[in-house]
């Protein structure tokens, strides 16, 4: 059995490649917030309190554009509701933990950490201390996210318009799923999700981000029924 610290370290190293997109994305998030005219402290507070890149940007964009708080909060809720799915998957490996530990670990669950931990946990599901992987990855992503948004806030207008990173975020997510491309059933689910997201893109509150996965999961459910 691997020690807690070894698994924690593995969590750290597994998410490190994602820093290629997380750091620039964090810098952009900080810089955009200041550019929208928000107080630097407030911009940083979104990283600490909300802690979710896309939802932070949408939140600030909406408020600076004059949208009501209710609209901004609803959008954040809709965009981040995908964490419910991550939680449902991870709960299999975290169910033995105490309630307090569950509450603590939950704060650190983000897309990249979920993706890497999910892969690792599936392969090593006999270990009992797997939550250290979730923690190692999650805390690392948290740390770099905080530092990079603060950098963005400080550098502000010095940041070149886009940093040429429009493709970086989708591409690093592509790296997450690339292994599953060998499995036909997963490819099917991915295509359903991808095309659904293009069709539903204009749905209110950016809800395509949760509606498309739900459509894809219904497709997966249907597919499993036909397989039997």
């Amino acid at each position, binding site marked *: 059995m691997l020690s807690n610290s070894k698994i924690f370290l593995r969590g750290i190293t597994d998410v490190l490649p994602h820093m290629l997109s997380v750091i620039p994305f964090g810098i952009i998030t900080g810089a955009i917030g200041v550019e929208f005219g*928000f107080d630097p402290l*407030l911009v940083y*507070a*979104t990283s600490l*309190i*909300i*802690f*979710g890149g896309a*939802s932070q940007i949408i*939140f600030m964009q909406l*408020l600076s554009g004059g949208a009501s*708080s209710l609209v901004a*909060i609803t959008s954040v*809720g809709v965009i*981040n509701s995908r964490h419910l*799915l*991550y*939680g*449902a*998957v*991870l*709960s299999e490996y975290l*169910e033995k933990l105490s309630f307090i530990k*569950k*509450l603590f670990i*939950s*704060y650190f*669950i983000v*897309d990249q950490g979920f*993706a890497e931990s999910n892969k690792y946990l599936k392969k090593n599901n006999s270990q009992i201390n797997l939550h250290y992987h979730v923690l190692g990855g999650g805390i690392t992503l948290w740390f770099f996210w905080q530092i990079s948004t603060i950098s963005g806030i400080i550098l502000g207008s010095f940041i070149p318009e886009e940093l*040429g*990173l*429009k*493709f970086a*975020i*989708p591409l690093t*997510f*592509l790296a*997450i*799923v690339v292994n*599953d491309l060998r499995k036909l059933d997963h490819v099917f*689910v*991915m*295509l*359903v*999700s*991808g095309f659904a*997201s*293009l069709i539903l*893109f*204009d749905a209110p509150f950016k809800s*395509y*981000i949760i509606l*498309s*996965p*739900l459509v*894809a*999961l219904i497709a997966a*459910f249907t597919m*499993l029924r036909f397989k039997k």
Partner: protein
Amino acid sequence: MTWFSIIVSGIVTYFSRMAMIALIDRDMLGVKIKEVLNYVPAAVFPAIIFPGIFFNDLGTIVEITDPKIYV
């Protein structure tokens, strides 16, 4: 008001992270649901990837003349 919105958004986000881990008992999920959960990564990430690649900021299809193509 903005501070209030940030805090409520934070609570909502944290709830989405915590609910399934801390509040739901896994036995409440049926076998079929657990099976479908295997497809969560395949179902979630393309919804982030596809629009990022195929749409520009205005939500229209990226054209070959779009400078984004050469980035």
